[in-house]
């Protein structure tokens, strides 16, 4: 039943001693959906993501990712997902080519597949003539786009993006979201957190976490109607301040 959903959670909970970081959250995310996972710092977003990406064992509740159980099948989950965050994406002191080959290998791609697809990826990003440059020498915007492409290189079903556009210039930020749309169009499920409220508008549905709970979950349009406001920014302010 749960396997029809890309990501499914019911009563998912994480406690650290007496502190409940995530309190019985439930949701179902469709394949190919762009799902925005919002919340103030400290609301429990990172903890929730760590449970879904197989990095942290839940205290209670159930969840499946790509049909696999988050308690007993974490290695299967890790192979089927891509992950990219603002804080860490690629190795700065390896070249563009080396990074692609490294991550491809880690995700179990065969050397031949890596070789074939690498040319395509580099061409698509206009990085062919920079393939032997160190990633550290690339401007931030190019790094982010490359990191995203590397996270998708092994063709995962689901990609987790943790504030992927932080600090990036406004044009690159939008080009990045077009890359997200392209991936979603191909059927990749996108689970993204962001502090840019305009980006929340690009999502099919959005959830907002407040102090460990999911305080709202719906399409941006429905949420704006529900709170009688014009923008996701205002929805967020109303909820987070409540």
């Amino acid at each position: 039943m749960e396997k029809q959903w890309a990501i499914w959670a019911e009563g998912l909970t994480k406690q650290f001693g007496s502190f409940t970081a995530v309190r019985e959250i439930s949701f179902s995310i469709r394949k190919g959906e762009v799902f925005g996972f919002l919340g103030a710092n400290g609301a429990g977003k990172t903890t929730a993501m760590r449970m879904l990406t197989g990095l942290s064992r839940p205290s209670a509740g159930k969840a499946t990712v790509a049909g696999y159980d988050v308690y007993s099948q974490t290695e299967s989950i890790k192979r089927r997902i891509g992950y990219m965050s603002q804080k860490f994406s690629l190795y700065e002191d390896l070249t563009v080519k080396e990074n692609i080959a490294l991550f491809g290998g880690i995700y179990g791609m065969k050397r031949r597949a890596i070789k074939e697809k690498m040319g395509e990826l580099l061409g698509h990003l206009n990085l062919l003539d920079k393939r032997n440059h160190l990633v550290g020498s690339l401007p931030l915007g190019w790094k982010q786009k490359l990191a995203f492409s590397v996270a998708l290189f092994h063709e995962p079903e689901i990609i987790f993006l943790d504030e992927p556009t932080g600090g990036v210039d406004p044009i690159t930020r939008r080009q990045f979201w077009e890359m997200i749309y392209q991936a979603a169009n191909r059927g990749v499920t996108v689970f993204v957190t962001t502090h840019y409220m305009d980006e929340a508008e690009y999502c099919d549905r959005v959830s907002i976490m407040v102090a460990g709970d999911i305080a709202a979950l719906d399409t941006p349009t429905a949420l704006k109607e529900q709170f009688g406001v014009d923008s996701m920014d205002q929805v967020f302010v109303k909820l987070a301040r409540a």
Partner: protein
Amino acid sequence: MKPVHIQQLTKSYNKVKALSEISLSIDSGELFGLIGPDGAGKTSLFRILTTLLVPDQGEAKVLGLDVVKDYKRIRQKIGYMPGRFSLYQDLSVEENLQFFATIFGTSIDENYDLIKGVYAQIEPFKKRRAGQLSGGMKQKLALSCALIHRPDILFLDEPTTGVDAVSRKEFWEMLQGLQEKGITILVSTPYMDEASLCDRIALIQSGQILSIDSPAGIVAKFDKPLYAIRSSNMYQLILDLRDWHRTYSIFPFGEYGHLITRQDLPIEEISVFLKQKGHEDIKIRRQTATIEDCFMELMPAVA
């Protein structure tokens, strides 16, 4: 005497030119925003002004004092909140504040009235270790420590980066409160919507200043036809408009896309084009440029 005066400031790190002949000045009591993405040069500029880094060329004066020759005197008079949380994680809130008050030769009591608006919100937690504070509370503590010696000018390097939308709003409200007390404030941010809260802003990208003016002044200089536009399939809308010969640029902007056309067009013409492409629920209206639209138009071309 202008609190900050910069002339032709240049700084390079090996081959990377972080700042290229930057010139600007800030007026007394101004809330001045330095707006630009990562890598624009904001932190390099702040480090030079707070006397932590020496420029390669050019000149900078803070409160009339030269940043190279008079660095010691500058350090006594400025408040600085760097980009990363830089307080002592294993000291309590109160201990951190006392520490900074002491090194500046003052006390918490002496200038309490100045920091009260900020500090009162974290005072109930004054015995908690700084490392255990939430992001929003860390900001408030860092700001209190930067203010405790009653500086004439505050330098805040990306104080709201990585912080949620609510805390960001609260922080700017605090800044406006401080400005009312006569403190000159230079603040940097990558968030373009915060620009409108400043008296004047400098848009900076790749070490160069794109424009300096009041937010209204920058918007007034935007001279291209701009429309907010949406349909039931936004991704397809963007692709279709990008292929249209009338389009100068089209970018997603939240719920709407922002379309700039090569010349002014009647809305009906755009609507007809989109209907022909099969779009439904089409909404188009003329749009006043936001700071972000202006920044994107002024930026050098991105590959």
